[in-house]
């Protein structure tokens, strides 16, 4: 009971603190502090409720138990991380996005192809492409290659659409200016149109980070070597070893957030000139 009351009291205090902090017209510190307090509160509430009500770890393990599990099985988690995120997701992510960009540039020269490919690309981007996972596993085997292939399929179309939209972004005035400079097609592309397309390209890249992780993990449900996050999650769920599953989820969440954050950081660095980046 003490745990429960303690957690609720903490919740009340933290919320009061957040209300105070939100009232202060503050800068960056507040923007970091408030969500941080909120996150910690959720963890404390979770811990308090699990301990206070004596919830079975098979249903919901407490955060401390999960933390201990993470500390204990770091080597396994690392192996899974390398297999799924580094080999499967990242490789597919790079191939898929570069492929989308290259096809967009190729299509861009022909308005006919562009008109034809765009509606199809838009449509395909909305389809549940994860469904190709079993097919890719059949083609490329159980290794990381099939996971990368699924990721390529998932990432390609959102990238293509965003890149095509981005390449159309440079205004006709600017293009005319390039023409008066007697710039060649490639000069125009590299110095004007690609930089102008960058906000769109990064928008696509950001959407695709999550898709890449989803693709890599889902593909492992259809067959994988005896390592990988999707494999570990599905087998440990079967053994009702839930702390381990939560540990994998924590790693996946961390990897997803870091990947997204990294892309967002590069975006800020590359497209510093864009209005959305001005603080």
């Amino acid at each position, binding site marked *: 009971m003490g745990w429960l009351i303690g957690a609720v009291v903490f919740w009340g205090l933290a919320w009061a603190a957040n209300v105070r902090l939100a009232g202060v017209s503050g800068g960056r510190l507040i923007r970091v502090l*408030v969500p941080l307090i909120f996150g910690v509160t959720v963890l404390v509430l979770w811990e308090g409720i699990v301990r206070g009500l004596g919830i079975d770890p098979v249903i919901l393990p407490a955060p401390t138990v999960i933390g201990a599990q993470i500390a204990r099985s770091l080597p396994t988690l690392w192996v899974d991380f390398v297999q799924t995120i580094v080999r499967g997701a990242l490789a597919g992510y790079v191939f898929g996005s570069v492929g989308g960009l290259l096809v967009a540039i190729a299509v861009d020269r022909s308005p006919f192809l562009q008109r034809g490919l765009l509606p199809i690309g838009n449509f395909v981007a909305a389809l549940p492409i994860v469904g190709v996972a079993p097919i890719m596993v059949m083609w490329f085997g159980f290794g990381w290659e099939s996971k990368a292939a699924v990721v390529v399929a998932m990432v390609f179309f959102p990238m293509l659409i965003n890149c095509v939209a981005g390449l159309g972004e440079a205004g006709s005035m600017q293009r005319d200016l390039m023409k008066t400079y007697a710039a060649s097609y490639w000069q125009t592309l590299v110095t004007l149109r690609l930089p102008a397309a960058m906000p769109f390209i990064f928008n696509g890249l950001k959407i695709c980070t999550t898709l890449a992780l989803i693709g890599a993990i889902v593909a492992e449900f259809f067959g994988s070597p005896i390592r990988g996050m999707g494999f570990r999650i599905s087998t440990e769920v079967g053994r009702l070893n839930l702390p381990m599953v939560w540990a994998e989820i924590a790693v996946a969440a961390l990897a997803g957030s870091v990947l997204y954050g990294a892309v967002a950081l590069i975006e800020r660095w590359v497209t510093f000139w864009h209005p959305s980046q001005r603080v």
Partner: protein
Amino acid sequence: MKTLLSVLTVLIAILVAWYVGTVAMNARWTLDQAARADREVSFSELVADTMHQTRPVVPAPHQVAAQLYDGIFGKKITSKRSLVYHGFITLETTLWGFGLGILLGVGLAVAITYSRTMELSVMPWAIISQTIPIVALAPMIVVISSQIGVEDIRVPKAVIAAYLSFFPVLVSMVKGLNSPDAMQVDLMHTYNASRAQSFWKLRFPASLPYLFASLKVAIAASLVGTIVGELPTGATSGLGARMLIGSQFGQPLAMWAALFAAAMLAGGLIVIVGLVERQAARMTGGA
């Protein structure tokens, strides 16, 4: 008209590439069979054979179409092998998840609009929540819901679908609820409108176009969530389960048919939501 021509050209190009791929990828099996039987195959025989294998690496488009037709029209709707049956189960969960996602997204958006504390604490986590691959959570949600006594397999699937579909709604609604400019908000003040009045008469109507714009994304996300939810959950019905079963029992044709059925379902849903969106835009005076 020009667009239609372009689209058709690209579609035909894809179809041709698919047929070429069929021949190229399936040739090995045919050649192996022929070598085992000590027989030479001519090119035309090779092509003919690659079109009709029962377990092809790449099924030919007409094989998939036949399987799809058989799955949709050839079986009784109640049959476990009917794609209509499985599609209906997937559709049902998708709609539940979609509804749940809208409720959650709109609810959070309202809370965020009216409370700065909520905005500062919840919004960053909502963004982070979308960088977490939900599929990692999917098996867990299934286990938890069965542990706490929810036997209905639709509940965890709908939760997963809602998790994926609430985010676009949330983002658009926050933007939409904040879209009335200061002048309009001030006008409500001079009318001495209560908070509820200015919500229902100003902010909510103003947010509707944003809401409908997000629904297309949300329904597609919801369908993906449902299908993913059907994979690790031991579900025996639904299009996702059909794919899993096709993969485990080595029935590539069933797998491809389920994939295309899912694509058709997605297309249908998006078109319907698009029509609703257009109708709503007309009713609210938009273009």
